[in-house]
């Protein structure tokens, strides 16, 4: 007796000035005595009209408020995922999820389990790179906090005993699924309900252990786990101390390491500036900064706000999603800046 999972995904994506793109496919996963196989096949084709409309609607609402120069970086994706799990030929669970993802300049603007969610631009204007940003206190935006954490975990070992500045304690915990619905796989969260079925118990572990690979079809044509940073783990990063926003503040929105080793390395950052009035301005051009991941996380003295979706876009290992709060550090920008035009 074998376990089958039918995983269908349809998505529409608007990206900057490029035309819309669609994806529509189905994966059939079978776990039986002979092993586990997955097959990418054709679903019943239909024009994803709803998805296109929903994606256009979110795209338009965010675009309306974006400062000029940011338009080409805006990406909006809407999708529907349907999972159907059957055991011994009998359907045991069916679940359908819709989602909307909007991101710009590396910032996840919205990631919500609904179609065509309304969202607005986080920035109202642009801010030039000049001397004034050097004196600002530093805040790690959710995606930057995730990038620093992933780097630290990859090279400096465990997140245990990671203390922020003073009494603040960072909490880095692993999520059991990605916040980005196409990367998570909910069909098998059935252990409680079906754990009495002996045959189910035999088949389920093989699917559970391999689930990220089986639904992430983009990994099928590449060497599996070729890098330590394989994008298959998802982290939630928060801090036990809530503090107000420093005002004004330099927010590092994204951080991309330009080296892959422990210790102090150079990073390329996108950034925003939060003014005294709370207005956000998007930064022009990349910043180059230098710091050691563990040391920077050690300078955190609190979080401001709730957990928000975060994404690290690694040029080799693909997108890795997680959750993080903006983290406020006691470092001033000039202490880590290696360039500022």
């Amino acid at each position, binding site marked *: 007796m074998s376990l089958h999972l039918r995983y269908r995904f349809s998505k529409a994506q608007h990206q900057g000035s*490029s*035309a*819309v*793109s*669609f*994806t*529509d*496919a*189905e*994966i059939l996963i079978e776990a039986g005595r002979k*092993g*586990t*196989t*997955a*097959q*990418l*096949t*054709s*679903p019943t*084709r239909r024009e994803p009209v709803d998805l296109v409309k929903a994606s256009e609607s979110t795209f338009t609402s965010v675009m309306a408020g974006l400062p000029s120069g940011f338009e080409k970086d805006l990406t909006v994706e809407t999708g529907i995922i349907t999972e159907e799990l059957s055991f011994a030929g009998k359907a045991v669970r069916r679940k359908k999820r819709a989602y909307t993802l909007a991101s710009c300049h590396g910032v996840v603007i919205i990631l919500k389990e609904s179609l065509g969610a309304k969202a607005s631009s986080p920035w109202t204007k642009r801010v030039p790179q000049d001397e004034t940003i050097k004196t600002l206190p530093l805040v790690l935006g959710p995606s930057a906090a995730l990038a620093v954490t992933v780097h630290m975990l990859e090279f400096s070992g465990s997140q245990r005993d990671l203390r922020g500045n003073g009494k603040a304690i960072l909490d880095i915990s692993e999520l059991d699924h990605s916040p980005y619905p196409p990367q998570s796989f909910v069909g098998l969260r059935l252990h409680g309900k079906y754990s009495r079925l002996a045959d189910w118990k035999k088949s389920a572990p*093989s699917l559970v*252990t*391999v689930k990220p*690979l*089986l639904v992430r*079809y*983009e990994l*099928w*044509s*590449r*060497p*599996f*786990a*070729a*890098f*330590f940073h394989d994008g298959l783990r998802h982290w939630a990063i928060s801090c036990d101390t809530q503090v107000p926003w420093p005002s004004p503040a330099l927010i590092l929105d994204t951080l991309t390491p*330009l*080296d*892959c*080793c422990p210790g102090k390395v*150079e990073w390329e950052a996108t950034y925003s500036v939060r003014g005294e009035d709370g207005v956000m301005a998007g930064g022009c051009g990349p910043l180059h900064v230098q710091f050691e991941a563990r040391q920077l996380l050690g300078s955190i003295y609190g979080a401001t706000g709730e957990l928000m979706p975060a994404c690290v*876009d*690694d*040029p*080799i*290992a*693909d*997108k890795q999603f997680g959750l993080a709060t903006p983290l406020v550090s006691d470092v001033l920008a000039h202490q880590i800046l290696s360039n500022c035009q």
Partner: protein
Amino acid sequence: MIAYFERSRSRFIVSHGNGLSGGANESYECEAERGRIRDEDGRSYSLGGAPPRKWNCRMPPPVLEEELPPLRRDLQNLCRSCDGGIQLHYSALVSHRITTGLGLEQPRRSFSAWAVTGWLCPPSHANAFPIGWSGRGEGASWIKNRATLELDLLNSSLERAEALQSDSVPAVLSPYAAAVILHEAIGHRAEAGRSSRNATGLVVASECISVVDDPLAQDGPASYEFDDENIRSLGPTTVVLEGKLVGQLHSPKTATLAGTLPTPNARAASCWDVPIPRMSNLICVPGTVPEEEMLERLWKGLYIHRLANGINNGRVIHADIILAERIQSGKRTGRFVTAGRIRDEINLLRRAVELGNNPEFNSNAMCGRENQLLFNVGVRSPSIRLSELAVVA
């Protein structure tokens, strides 16, 4: 309209051991039939399933030739042979592809590639050392024959290796190590589209270095007559001539932007990915000097056996030194060093003094760019002697 179709089959085996109980493994197989259609307006549709029959481009199911049970057994044996911890991920991909569209030929392209990745932790070390081997075809013969030798070299040498100190030293790069540096310092700079600047004319290496890119190089990890945009290979593309960058590797899109002709270098990880300019097989013209003579002329310095995790960030070349050996009085000393990195300027090959007569293809042909990781990006290089190499602890 242009359409890209693919039918592929991949196999994954995860195997691990810890010296005492080694060799447990799991395996998975994934089969994909899919296509991507780009219409005149630039809209792109990625679809699962076979192409419509009337398009006349259906492909036979790809077959993984090597049998699973012996492969699993050989991976288990490899894990059991290590005294320390080890984890190996075996991946194999066999794929048929067709690109069809206005005025283009529709040759069916087939390829197969394999990779073994993972880590090794010798008993005396707290650190894990990365393992990465890959190439054309399927990997059974490498796993059975060469992998044991590679692991023996690493296990026996790392056991007594000292930590490297930061320094600037004369060095000889083994063919495998030289391949990593050539790939980063020359190959990536030759790929169009990485920066808006046309880099041709730049002196990127010393005059003893000339390099071509050849998708049809004998025994190369890459092997194709047509690239993923149906551009046919008409022979090697000269990339570096006597140290000067004279040619770039193009896709039709980047060639149009640069006002030149495309080269057969548009490659995509799958038909759902956009083909971008990538190296195929980078071939460095060898020198005439035996490696032993190069070491004699080096007199004192480092012989770099193995590098990993090469990165070119546009300004600096980085690579992990997995294994190097001290050279004294022109001889190998058996004093191994590890746990260091090369961190040198992007033009470090300008310090190349001479090349060996011992060219070999790299044992690790994996390369990632723009979220597309390929198994089969080859480099054939001889040993290279450098007057100076910056290494950091």
